């Protein structure tokens, strides 16, 4: 009989405590944002697809066309091409494409890069209507970025 009543009262009390919690939530400020109209900054830990970093000193990428990323990529989704030019030391990068349809975000290319030319971008709106939409030309992307 004692258990019957103690169960009733502890149960009722726990209900009141629970209702207090939700009532407090009701009058707390909203924590979500109205996404397409309102956007919040992406956390620096976010791993988007890879992108060439724009060096603030030279105003262009730091790629030396060594091809390590291309060789290391387990999915063969990176293509790097360069050519020798008169009066320029080393090779000049002419093509750097990423086939994002095959990329698995393993990050081997970012790890292996000797000049730290690659990094993950914070692009999260990457919907497309055709496969070709995900074949990124990273040189073009680095030039277009301000």
């Amino acid at each position: 009989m004692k258990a019957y009543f103690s169960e009733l009262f502890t149960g009722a009390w726990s209900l009141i405590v629970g209702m207090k919690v939700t009532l407090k939530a009701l009058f707390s400020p909203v924590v979500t944002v109205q996404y397409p109209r309102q956007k919040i900054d992406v956390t620096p830990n976010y791993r988007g697809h890879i992108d060439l970093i724009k060096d603030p000193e030279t105003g262009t990428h730091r790629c030396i066309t060594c091809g390590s990323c291309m060789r290391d990529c387990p999915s063969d989704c990176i293509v790097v091409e360069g050519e020798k030019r008169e009066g320029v030391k080393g090779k000049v990068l002419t093509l750097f494409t990423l086939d994002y349809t095959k990329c698995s975000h393993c990050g081997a290319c970012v790890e292996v890069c000797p000049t730290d030319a690659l990094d993950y971008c914070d692009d999260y709106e990457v919907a497309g209507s055709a496969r070709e939409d995900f074949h990124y030309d990273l040189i073009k992307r680095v030039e277009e970025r301000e």
Partner: protein
Amino acid sequence: METLNAFAPELIRMIIAVIGAAVLVFGNALVMGYMERKLAGHFQRRTGPMEVGFHGILQLIVDGIKLMAKQLVIPAKADKPLYMLAPIISFAPVFLPLLVIPFSDRIQGFDLDVALLFMLAIASVNVFAVLIGGWASNNKYSMFGAFRAVAQSIAYEIPMLLSLLAIVFMTNTFSLRGIMDAQNVWFIFLQPVAFLIYLVSMVAETNRAPFDLPEAESELTAGFHTEYSGMAFSLFMMAEYTNMFIASCIATVFFLGGTSGIPLPYFEYTGIIWFLLKAYMFMFFLVWIRWTFPRTRFDQLMNLCWKYLLPFSLVNLLITVVVVKL
């Protein structure tokens, strides 16, 4: 004018009352649908509907148009006549209890001597509709939902009636107006146990969370209305919202003194403001607990009814009878 005079004034009054009830049913479904979604959002620190109209105020109208335009899918092996009948049986009777509710001194369809019995009898028809809908869908989820709804409604009707009966003994009338007028002190203070019992039974009776076993999403997809689409589904939903409103109105009349409140000018009409305020307070409570408590297990639901609510309501009734007799 002569044809108009040929009608009894009582008939004209009834026509106006029925139209008013219809407006109330649809208006309440709109307000409640919006309020529920908005409150659900804010209870979870989201915003709820925001896109259609100012803060999503037109969302329910848009949803209504969508539901009306949707195709009514009838499962191939369903019992077709019964399948179509169930939402109608659920929705059609919800107008009737609204006719006898005294919204204010002058706003009432008609004052029935057995209004309470009438309302509870009509409210029970909803169970019938749920059972028919669940059976006719020819779907195991619907069937289980219907079984649960019947077991639950039968169980919870008893403590609900017993708790209200305690008040009927005090006032000696089944008429809602009589009960409202008898309250010099609100009955919530004289009958707190009956109030709590009614509150719990009301949630179970309207099949709302945490007692929404008949439509438990996680176990039964949507319970008895799994197979219903478009307008058939929305008839069930509107019936549910109206039943919530009716249960809230009964609670207002029985425990919170109905229209009593700070006197306003033309109080015989403006009493409806206090009445609706109190009724919607109960509706808020229903939404509040829905977004607070997890769903109970079925045996717990039955235990709560038979082991707690029923003995308490019987003891409460006994004490009330003794005190009234003294």
